[in-house]
């Protein structure tokens, strides 16, 4: 059976690998449709035939849950992530030094109202009391990868992205990591859909996501695995 997984785009590398392992092991295959968490949730609400949904933020999972689209009891927090300050040149700097270092240049982030990484970043900057100063210098992109690209190409000297993204891009350097208490916890919830066409296989894949094999892959990508309850 084929499991259709709607997953946040930032999980692509890890999930592709895990799906391959799963296929090798069980003969089942998982089709992975990646996109923005918001878009995927809206599509599921509109009747998309997804079996599983892995979101990059809790809010869209919450809204699906509120709409009764989730299979009872299937939701759990799968992964965590860390938020880092990246720079186009090597060398550590503290977030507090950002206003000076930026000058007239820009800080690349995901859309601070819409993209999860942007929302967390804004919270962190607010927590550090930097948001007011930095807000006009923030260049927001529609996904984290675009923010990463701005720093990688040197258009923006600094950016705020997930540690997983920073690790994958060789042209950027991690300048600092935001304290985990400076923003709401970064969690990736997963759930099976109530109308899942392939509920059994979906449950199997869901279980596989919690396996040691999967955890290894996630960790290698820089995610923190949240232990199953």
């Amino acid at each position, binding site marked *: 059976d084929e499991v*259709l997984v709607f997953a946040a785009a930032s999980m*692509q590398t890890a999930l592709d690998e895990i799906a391959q392992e799963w296929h090798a092991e069980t003969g089942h295959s998982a*089709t992975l449709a990646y*996109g923005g968490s918001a878009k995927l949730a*809206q*599509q599921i609400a*509109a*009747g*998309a035939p997804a079996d599983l949904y892995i979101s990059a933020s809790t809010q869209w999972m919450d809204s699906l849950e509120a709409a009764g689209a989730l299979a009872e009891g299937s939701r759990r927090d799968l992964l965590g992530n860390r938020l880092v300050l990246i720079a186009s040149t090597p060398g550590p700097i503290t977030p507090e030094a950002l206003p000076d270092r930026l000058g007239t240049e820009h800080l690349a982030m995901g859309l601070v109202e819409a993209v999860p990484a942007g929302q967390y970043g804004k919270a962190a900057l607010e927590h550090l009391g930097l948001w007011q100063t930095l807000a006009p210098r923030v260049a927001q992109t529609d996904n984290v990868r675009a923010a990463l690209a701005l720093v990688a190409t040197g258009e923006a000297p600094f950016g705020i992205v997930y540690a997983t993204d920073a690790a994958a*891009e060789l042209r950027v350097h991690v300048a600092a990591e935001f304290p985990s208490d400076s923003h709401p916890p970064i969690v990736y919830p997963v759930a099976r859909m109530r109308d899942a066409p392939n509920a059994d296989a979906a449950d199997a894949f869901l279980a596989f996501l919690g396996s040691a094999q999967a955890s290894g892959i996630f960790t290698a990508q820089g995610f923190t695995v949240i232990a199953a309850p």
Partner: protein
Amino acid sequence: MTGLTPEEATALTLSLRVAGVAVLVSLPVGLAVAMVLARGRWPGLWLLNALVHLPLILPPVVTGYFLLLAFGRKGPVGAFLEQAFGLVFAFRWTGAALAAAVMGFPLMVRAMRLAIEAVDPKLEEAASTLGASRLAVFRSVTLPLILPGVIAGAVLAFAKAMGEFGATITFVSNIPGQTQTLPSAIYTALQVPGGDTTAGRLALISVIVAVSAVLLSEFIARRVAARIRGA
């Protein structure tokens, strides 16, 4: 070039199918709308005109979202079409074709309309004095004369269909093998660190295919135009 993964090959053929069907199906509709807009004299025509331009004006995501709300399985139009004709757009390649057709529609209609407006009505009058009904005049005089415009419209729509992303991914998502068109595949590749080269390769394929189509049709259109000019 040859290093096309099976999924990528699937995405390419899907894109071609989607773009081809989108253009073929919307062609007659576009032609009819273009005729009405060019020749009609009803007071309410501005509304149709505005409607045709909508997909251009709205961000593609919004158009896609509208399509999702209207043509989704739970949407009013989608539910009706499924009940009445068993026609499903949601999360199928047909939906991608619908999205592509809608997004290309303003371009197609505009090109055809310009061509229709350039036709000398005196030639159509001459045909009618020779006994041709309005339909016959259209078929035997108007249509051949606007052929370059029709081709131009089809090419624009095809190119747009090959590149359309926002509305498609919003409407039918990005399901490999089912709704993942070339642009979606490119987008997906771009989301992966180091995916730039994959994305570039896919973009190149897309460009080669679409540009070939454009140039071929250009060539045809030139020949048609030369025939009309008469030599």
